[in-house]
């Protein structure tokens, strides 16, 4: 069965256009695991920053009185997609997968579908 390392590897190898991935705790902002990225894309910084995105959206939903849950958040740049997918897990484990995709090569619907499958292996 897949461990954390192989799940992250699978994100990069099986999802077309994927260039970086991180598993992040959005209560603390800490990345539990990262893969890809490199010198020109600091994943630790991206993980911490996107934690603010998730928290801000959750807070907005609280203010609006929405009881629904976030499945994913998509941020579209001119050359990249950034996909944030919240892990469900019992008791709300407060984690999200953060995936960076090359917009020219990615298929968003497929990426979403594959991320959901990989996520299942990490959920408690």
């Amino acid at each position: 069965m897949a461990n954390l390392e192989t799940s992250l590897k699978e994100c990069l190898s099986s999802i077309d256009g994927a260039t970086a991935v991180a598993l992040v705790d959005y209560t603390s902002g800490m990345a539990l695991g990262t893969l890809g990225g490199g010198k020109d894309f600091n994943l630790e910084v991206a993980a911490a920053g996107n934690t603010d995105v998730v928290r801000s959206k959750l807070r907005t939903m609280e203010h609006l009185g929405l009881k629904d849950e976030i499945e994913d958040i998509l941020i579209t740049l001119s050359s990249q997609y950034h996909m944030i997918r919240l892990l469900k897990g019992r008791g709300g484990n407060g984690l999200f997968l953060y995936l960076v995709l090359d917009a020219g090569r990615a298929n968003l619907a497929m990426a979403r579908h594959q991320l959901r499958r990989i996520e299942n292996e990490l959920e408690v």
Partner: protein
Amino acid sequence: MTRVTTTWATHGTTSDALGALAAEGATGALSGERGIVYLSAGRVVHVESAFTPDLGALLTRSGAVPPDGWWDAVDRGGTQHRVGHRLVDSGRLAAGALEVCHLGALFDAAYFVLAHDTRARRFRPGAVHWLGPVRSVPVDVVVRESGRRRELLDRIWPDPAVDTLPLARVPGTDSDELPGRRGRTLAQVDGVRTAAEIASALACRTYHTLVELRRLAADGLVRAAPPAAPPLPPGPEPRAVAWDDPDTALLRRLRDALEAL
């Protein structure tokens, strides 16, 4: 493999002692005032503290692993220090899920050990945790993350007593419109339980519970119960949740003590 080392003892804080042990690539268990850090080849492989529910409590209370399954893995894998492997090999848990849960428990316990960063008490060279290898984290990452968490919590409400003392509701306050997790957390505050017991009851990570509790304290809804609490605290539903499983922290310490003989 294991070299006997004493330089750790010259350091005045647990985090500095850990740094010295990491530099030597040490393997063993360093006891601080609030818990034990297990090292393997200079990296942190496990941390436990009586102030946080352990991995077993998190896994069984969340329903991820049935209690029988957990104890079966402890029975069969404990003496070979392979409990984690047993859980995965028996198909009860995906390896990734175990690693995520283990890292959560490790950083939760490390926060308590390192937030109260006094002189380390003892180092047992070669000591190995019965859970066995799951993931390892560099010492500096654990120390840095623990400090960051302390700052984040203090920014919400600078009272560390909330982390460890029994918690009580502030009488006469209105708590109707709280969002999901904060409301569920407040419902567990009964004048008796501590943050660790509330986290365990909710099967929620301790740090996440601490964030909610400090927010509740900042909102004036919760406070640390006075130390000389009356014998019958006025909690709304004391012991509303059935406490039917054994005290895993105590059993774990007993096992460690027996193994150390």
